[in-house]
């Protein structure tokens, strides 16, 4: 009896949810760490993404509909990011997912995206193996540690003339991967390795590490760290009276990094996939719009959020509908003119073709020393120049 009463109610409910995808917006889900130790960078990514959606909607949206961006906090943790993905797919019925930031979190969301056949793009996670898992729904519009190492090692040797380098990285997949990739590439160019050391997220006192660095006889030090850790480390290198060339990867060449690091930031080098004063009209426009919206210039992660959303919206437009396999095809056909170069994807979903820059911080500003292009990883080193 009870079933009979419930049946019509349930039928209505099912109809309502089945009708949901046919509403007049195209929903895209974004998972970023908005709380926790990388919240600062995750927020920047989300800001870039919001800007991309706002611009697209002002220009008419995709498929003739407005785009609705739904942002969830994944906290850089695999468990929370999976929950966020489930919620976005099941409840919000998003047509595509972007995000997860930390490689370990992205890696956990990938099987969820595959299970529900939802296209999934990361603009940040750089752990190399993600695009080697054969997940047809997964794409990455970011450099991997190895690609960045390859692109930069020559620049670093040519511009800095280093003979013996010490490597310091944050103790996670990304930090370890970056230190190893650069160590390997630089060794290939005949640079001696003085030491490789790691520190934990949120560490505040680096004097022990610096004591070892001072005794290592290196003439340069490579650091893989994000804003907070990197700034503290650089400040302490200067306090400790260590006079070495410092070059880092992570979110270094941002106005915030320079602001919180102060004078200690003078003269350091950063290998970055994006910096706000990259040359080019397309970038100038992006910087102007971003600064108008958020009162500060965009950094690496703001650009990553902006680019990944634009790539996804282009792909949906190209698909001509919200069907997953059509969007995947649309992603494969990507040829996106970004503020930092032209993004395309390999068959595995690895992005390439965009620029990266070696910058030096002088007088509180970033000077672009040289730029290099992230090459198609299928091509060999010999074809780097193309």
């Amino acid at each position: 009896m009870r079933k009979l009463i419930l049946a019509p109610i349930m039928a209505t409910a099912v109809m309502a949810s089945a009708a949901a995808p046919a509403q007049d917006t195209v929903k895209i889900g974004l998972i970023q760490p908005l709380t926790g130790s990388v919240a600062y960078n995750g927020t920047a990514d989300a800001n870039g993404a919001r800007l991309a959606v706002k611009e697209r909607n002002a220009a008419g949206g995709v498929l003739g509909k407005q785009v609705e961006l739904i942002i969830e906090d994944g906290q850089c943790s695999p468990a929370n990011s999976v929950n966020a993905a489930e919620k976005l797919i099941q409840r919000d019925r998003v047509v595509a997912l972007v995000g997860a930031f930390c490689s370990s979190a992205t890696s956990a969301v990938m099987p969820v995206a595959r299970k529900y056949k939802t296209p999934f793009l990361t603009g940040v996670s750089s752990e190399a193996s993600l695009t080697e898992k054969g997940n047809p729904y997964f794409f990455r519009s970011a450099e991997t540690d190895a690609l960045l190492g390859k692109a930069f090692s020559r620049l670093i040797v040519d511009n800095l003339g280093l003979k013996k380098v010490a490597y310091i990285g944050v103790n996670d997949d990304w930090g370890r991967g970056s230190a190893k990739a650069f160590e390997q590439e630089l060794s290939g160019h005949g640079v001696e390795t003085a030491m490789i050391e790691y520190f934990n997220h949120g560490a505040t006192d680096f004097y022990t590490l610096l004591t070892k660095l001072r005794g290592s006889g290196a003439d340069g030090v490579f650091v893989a760290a994000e804003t907070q850790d990197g700034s503290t480390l650089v400040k302490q290198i200067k306090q400790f009276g260590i006079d070495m060339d410092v070059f880092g990867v992570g979110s270094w060449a941002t106005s915030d990094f320079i602001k919180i690091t102060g004078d200690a930031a003078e003269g350091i080098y950063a290998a970055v996939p994006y910096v706000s004063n990259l040359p080019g009209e397309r970038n100038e426009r992006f910087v102007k719009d971003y600064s108008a919206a958020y009162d500060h210039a965009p950094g690496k992660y703001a650009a990553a959020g902006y680019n990944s959303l634009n790539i996804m919206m282009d792909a949906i437009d190209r698909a001509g509908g919200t069907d997953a396999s059509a969007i995947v095809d649309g992603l494969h056909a990507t040829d996106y003119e970004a503020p930092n170069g032209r993004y395309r994807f390999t068959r595995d979903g690895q992005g390439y073709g965009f620029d990266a820059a070696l910058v030096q911080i002088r007088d509180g500003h970033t000077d672009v020393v040289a730029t290099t292009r992230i090459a198609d990883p299928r091509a060999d080193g010999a074809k780097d120049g193309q």
Partner: protein
Amino acid sequence: MDMLLQFVANGLVSGAFYALSALGLTLIFGLMRVVNFAHGELYMLGGVMGWLATTVLGLNFFAGLALTLAVMGACGWLVDRFLIERVRDQGEEPSILLTIGLSIFLTNTALLLVGTAPLTIEGPLPNKPVFLGPVVLTELRVFAVAACAVLILAAHLVIRHTRLGRAMRATFQDPMAARLAGINTARVYASTFALGTMLAASAGMLLGSIYSTHVSAGGLVSLKAFVVVILGGMGSFAGAIVGGLILGVAEALWGGYISTGTVDIIGFIIVILTLIFKPYGLFSTQVERA
């Protein structure tokens, strides 16, 4: 040899900071039997307040510290009167749940108000290197260690030699007898929590000027403070100081001679060894109460 001296010096400096960070925790536990899981967040709020006072209000470091202490002391008082008061004498679990809830609330409120950006506090001295033979320190670090010593000594004197301190110790020994003797125990508890909060906040501001601070800093601070307190003995003043120095030096030596990437393992090893061999800590609370 020079390396060893530098490692020990580094360890003693960070040990002094650990001691100050842990002192408020051990004080509140020793006198009130409240395990304060929001300790790290009170530390974080001290840093955020210090940043507000020096950067936004433009005060100098010492005026900022005084303001931070006053505001955080008042916060501690209010937290005790309006929250902890409600679960007093109901065993330890309700207060644990309460302080965990408080820590989540404080982190997220700070996140909402201040945002995620790292905050730097302008220190009273330049961060210039000071050379003591082969050992490098900075003026600010030497100052901070001295400030730690002064704050620890001040807290000790308050508890040992003032009327309020005597009332605190009496209340801890026997709340009923203290009340019969005319001590307003509610006020004593609130003062104790305020004092513990002020110690945490002063550590937050002091260390914020040396490193930098951010709203998610609390978790790691709580973790280290618990290690120090378990090693030194819950509620022991001397234990917090010795425990802090031991943890600092052990971490520096491990980082120096083994690897800096695994340095957090030291805290866990210390906790496990303490619980196996001296479960009440190095300075048993039976002998000395704060």
